[in-house]
C-alpha cells in the first residue's frame, strides 16, 4: 500500500461529482416520486372504477421499473438519456437513469408512509369540508412528514450505491474512480479510498436523516 502515489485532486473531483449526482438525482427523484406516491395512495383507497384503473396501470409501471436491474436500465436508457441531456456518460448522463430507477422506489415508500396516516384525521378534514387537494397538502403531507423524511434518507442512501454501479458505464463520481483505477488498474489504494469515502457519506446522510425525523416527530 502506498498512499503517496494517490492523486488526491482526482479523488476530490470524484467526490464532488458524486455529491452533484446525489443532489440532482435526489431532487428529481423526490419531485417525481412524491406526486406519484400521493397518486398511488389516493387512487388505491378510492372506490371509483376510474381511480382503480389508474392505480392498476401506475402500479404495473412502477413494478416493472423496479424489477429491471439498474445496470440493465442504464444501458437500455442510453438512447433516451442522449435525447434528454445530450450525453449518456458522466455526471449528466447518469442522472436520468438514476431518477427513473429511484423515483418508483421512492413512490412506493411514499405510498406506504401515507397509509400510516390516521384515517380518522383524514375523515375529520373531510367532515370540515376540505377538498382533496387540501387534504393532501394540509393533512397527508404534514402528518406523514417524519415518515417521508425517513423515506428520502433511504432513497438517497440507495442512490449512493447506484452511483457506484453507474461507474461501470463511466457515470462519473467515486464509483467510476473505484472501477477505473481500483479495479481495472489494480490500484487497491484508490479502491479503499473510494469505498471508505462512500461509507462515510452514507453514515453522514443517515445521521442527518435520522436527526430530521426526530426533529419533526410530534407523537
Amino acid at each position, binding site marked *: 500500500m502506498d498512499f503517496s502515489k494517490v492523486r488526491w485532486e482526482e479523488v476530490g473531483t470524484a467526490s464532488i461529482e458524486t455529491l452533484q449526482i446525489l443532489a440532482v438525482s435526489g431532487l428529481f427523484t423526490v419531485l417525481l416520486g412524491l406526486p406519484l406516491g400521493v397518486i398511488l395512495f389516493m387512487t388505491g383507497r378510492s372506490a371509483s372504477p376510474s381511480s382503480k384503473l389508474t392505480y392498476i396501470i401506475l402500479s404495473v409501471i412502477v413494478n416493472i421499473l423496479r424489477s429491471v436491474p439498474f445496470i440493465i436500465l442504464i444501458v437500455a436508457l442510453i438512447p433516451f438519456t442522449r435525447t434528454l441531456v445530450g450525453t449518456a456518460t458522466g455526471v449528466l448522463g447518469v442522472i436520468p437513469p438514476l431518477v427513473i430507477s429511484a423515483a418508483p422506489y421512492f413512490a412506493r415508500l411514499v405510498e406506504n408512509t401515507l397509509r400510516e396516516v*390516521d384515517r*380518522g*384525521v383524514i*375523515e*375529520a*378534514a*373531510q*367532515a*370540515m*369540508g*376540505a*377538498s382533496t387537494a*387540501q387534504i393532501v397538502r*394540509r*393533512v397527508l403531507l*404534514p*402528518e406523514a*412528514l417524519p415518515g417521508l423524511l425517513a423515506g428520502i434518507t433511504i432513497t438517497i442512501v440507495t442512490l449512493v450505491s447506484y452511483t457506484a454501479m453507474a461507474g461501470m458505464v463511466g457515470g462519473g463520481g467515486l464509483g467510476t474512480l473505484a472501477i477505473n483505477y481500483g479495479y481495472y488498474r489494480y490500484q487497491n489504494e484508490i479502491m479503499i479510498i473510494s469505498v471508505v469515502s462512500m461509507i462515510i457519506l452514507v453514515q453522514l446522510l443517515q445521521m442527518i436523516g435520522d436527526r430530521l425525523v426526530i426533529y*419533526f416527530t*410530534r*407523537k
Partner: protein
Amino acid sequence: MLGANSYRIMLHMILADEKVISREEPSLYLQRALFLRRTGSFPFLRVKIYVGDGEGAVLVIELVGLTKTYGRRTKATTALSHLDLKIQKGEIFGVIGHSGAGKSTLIRCINLLERPTEGEVWVDGINLTELSKSELQQQRRKIGMIFQHFNLLSSATVYDNVAFPLKLVNTPKDAIDRKVKEMLALVGLEQHSSKYPAQLSGGQKQRVGIARALASDPSVLLCDEATSALDPQTTNSILKLLLDINEKYNLTIVLITHEMHVIQNICDRVAVIHQGGIVEQGPVTEVFMKPQHAITRDFVSRDSEGGLALEETVMANAETELPAGISSKLVKVSFLGNKTYEAILSRTVRKTGVDFAILQGTISTIKQVPYGQLTVRFEGDSAAIEQTLSELTAEGLDVEVLR
C-alpha cells in the same frame, strides 16, 4: 330561494289548523308553499309541511327513508333501513344503541361521510344527497363534528388545529387569530395553544376537537361517541361543556352513545336504534321513565346500579307471608320535577292507613330535572290499597301495578 331545487320551504312553518304560529318564518312562505303544493305546478320545488306541536319548532336535520347497505347483493348487510328522523333547532338529540345497531352509520350519514344507499339527508333546508362534490364541501363547513378518538392533526399545535377549518376557506390571519383565541377561551385551553396533541390529556384533546368543530360557526354539532374514550370525571366535564355551548349559542347537538347516563345528563330527546331502525323515540324523561321497547328497558335498567338482576330478585322475593284479611300489591311509582321533593307518599299512606315497603328505588336527575322511581309493596285492606293508588294518581304520580 324558490328557484333552486336544493332548497325547500322547511318546517319553519308549524301548522295548527293551517295557521302559522311560528315566529321564525313569514307566513308568506307558507301560503306560497300551500298554494304550490295544491296546484302541483312546480314539480321541482319540494314542499313538505309537517304538523307540529304548536311550539314553533324549527327542524335543522331531517332524514327521510335513510337506507345504507354495505357490500353487494348476496353478501349485502344492512346498516340502516328506511330510517326517518327529525331533529329540531337548539335541542340536544341523543341516539343510543348497542354496537352494531347502526348508530355510527347514522351520524356519519348526516354529513355524508357515509353516502346512504337510499333516502334523503336534509340539513338546514338543503338536501345534501343532491349536491355536487364542491357544494357538499361547502355545506359540510356548517356541520361541526367531534370524534371518539379526537382525530386531531398530530403535526399541528392546538392553535393550528383550531385554525384548520378557517384556513380551509382562506380566512384572513387576524380573523383566524381572533376566532381561535375565542374558541380556546371557550373550552378553557388558552394556556395550551402552542402544545402538540401528544402533550395533552384525553379530555383536553376532546376540548381541542370541540373548539375546532365550533370555529367555523356551524349550525349543528355531531358527536360520534365523543366521550366513550374518556374516564367518568372527564366525560362529565365534556358533557357539561357541550351543555354550556348548547345554551350559549343555541347550537343543535346530535350525539350517539351506548351509555344511558350521557343521554340522561344532557339530552332533550332520545331515539333508540336497534338493527338499523329506530324502535323508540321521544323526550328523555318519557323514554327514561316509561321505556316501551325491550332494548330501551335494557339500557335504562342497566344504568341504574344492579340492573335487571335486581328487578328480577325484587319480583321473586316480593311475596311474603301475610296474616288473613291483609292483601298486598307490588307497585312501581314514578314522579318527575318538583313532585320529587313533596311528601306525597307518606301523606297518602297516613290517610289511607296502609303500610308500605320500598323494595327498589332511584332518585336522580334527567338533565337537571329531578325524578324518582320506586318499587313499593303496599300492605293492608285491599280497598284501602286501591284508594291509595287512586290518590297517588290524583296527586300526579305515575302508578303502575306490577303484581
